[in-house]
């Protein structure tokens, strides 16, 4: 029997995007440019509700073509949107993908580790991927700690001066996690 609840953990639930309800909330989060960079990697700027809706359409097309997987993340208690996680650049033949996740609601950041566990379990156990990578700008120390200490990711490289934030250039740190590494250190998530 398979009884794992892939979409639920203690506090969180993974769901599809609710275009009309989520757009106004996520649009406000994009004032934080460290959040906005997840909408368009090549240009972090605040996004209107209209742009968010169009972005959801693009994500939906990507999902239909099996190139990406995107989840809206909600708090189980009241169904409130707290963030997202996504795999893009999925290459099925190589079993690899690029992981992105962020919690936009500042009060809910304590759930980041829980969300990462849900994401990793889905990527390895359900999608049968072999390798995940996450690229994090040097200024985002929280994400670095999260990927290394909670996720067991390995620092694989450093793209010099590949990010611009708060008035200056920063390196982009490249992290990778292989399935055997995750299996050796996996943390069980229960709903």
């Amino acid at each position, binding site marked *: 029997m398979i009884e794992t609840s892939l979409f639920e953990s203690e506090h969180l639930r993974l769901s599809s995007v609710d275009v009309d309800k989520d757009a106004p909330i996520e649009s406000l989060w994009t004032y934080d440019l460290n959040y906005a960079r997840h909408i368009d*990697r090549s240009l972090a700027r605040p996004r209107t509700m209209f742009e968010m809706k169009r972005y959801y359409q693009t994500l939906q097309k990507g999902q239909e073509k099996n190139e990406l997987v995107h989840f809206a993340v909600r708090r189980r208690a009241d169904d409130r949107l707290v963030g997202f996680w996504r795999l893009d650049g999925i290459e099925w033949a190589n079993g690899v993908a690029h992981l992105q996740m962020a919690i936009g609601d500042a009060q809910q950041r304590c759930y980041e580790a829980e969300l990462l566990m849900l994401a990793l379990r889905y990527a390895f156990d359900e999608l049968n991927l072999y*390798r995940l990578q996450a690229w994090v700008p040097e200024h985002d120390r929280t994400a670095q700690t999260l990927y290394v200490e909670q996720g067991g990711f*390995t620092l694989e*490289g450093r793209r010099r001066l590949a990010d611009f934030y708060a008035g200056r250039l920063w390196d982009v740190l490249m992290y990778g996690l292989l399935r055997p590494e995750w299996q050796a250190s996996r943390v069980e998530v229960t709903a």
Partner: protein
Amino acid sequence: MNAERLQGALVRLALFDFEKDLPEWARWGRDSEYLRLSDSGPARQWPLEDMKKYIEENLETMHLFSIRTLAEDRLIGSVDLSGFNWVTGNAWVGIGIGDRDFWGRGYGGEAMRLMVRYGFEALNLRRISLSVFEYNPRAIRSYEKAGFVIEGRARQYLQREGRRWDVIYMGILREDWQDLEKEGS
């Protein structure tokens, strides 16, 4: 800038010519080794029409050049810059020498150096990035000669021929390139 800045001792970077160049692309596309050196996705056979459509759709956002020999004006490959981030001044370069007669003879290396110069001189880039596969040491050496340094290694990214291989990420900063230019002059 003028056409001379796109010309070296062996090759020049020429405008892509749909009529003349596409059939050559189709010929290179039958070489599975070439495809596996160029792309991490599965090697496949695409109709000429699809290649044409791809170029038509992307020509305005990527900077694509055909690589032609100076001696015989022979088309031997292509090089392009894409994935621009104009805020950081980064772009990704891709190069392929489809004509096997010109592998390992410095033609690709020179084309890469011309493209790097174009990126810094004409497009005001701050850095140029590329990725290359572990099983392509000839390309890695050539990129190092052009001034790229290894910045990272995506362990076991590729699954090919029954085993896994790394993808290697390289980059060149404008300062790296300027130092090379000074040494050269």
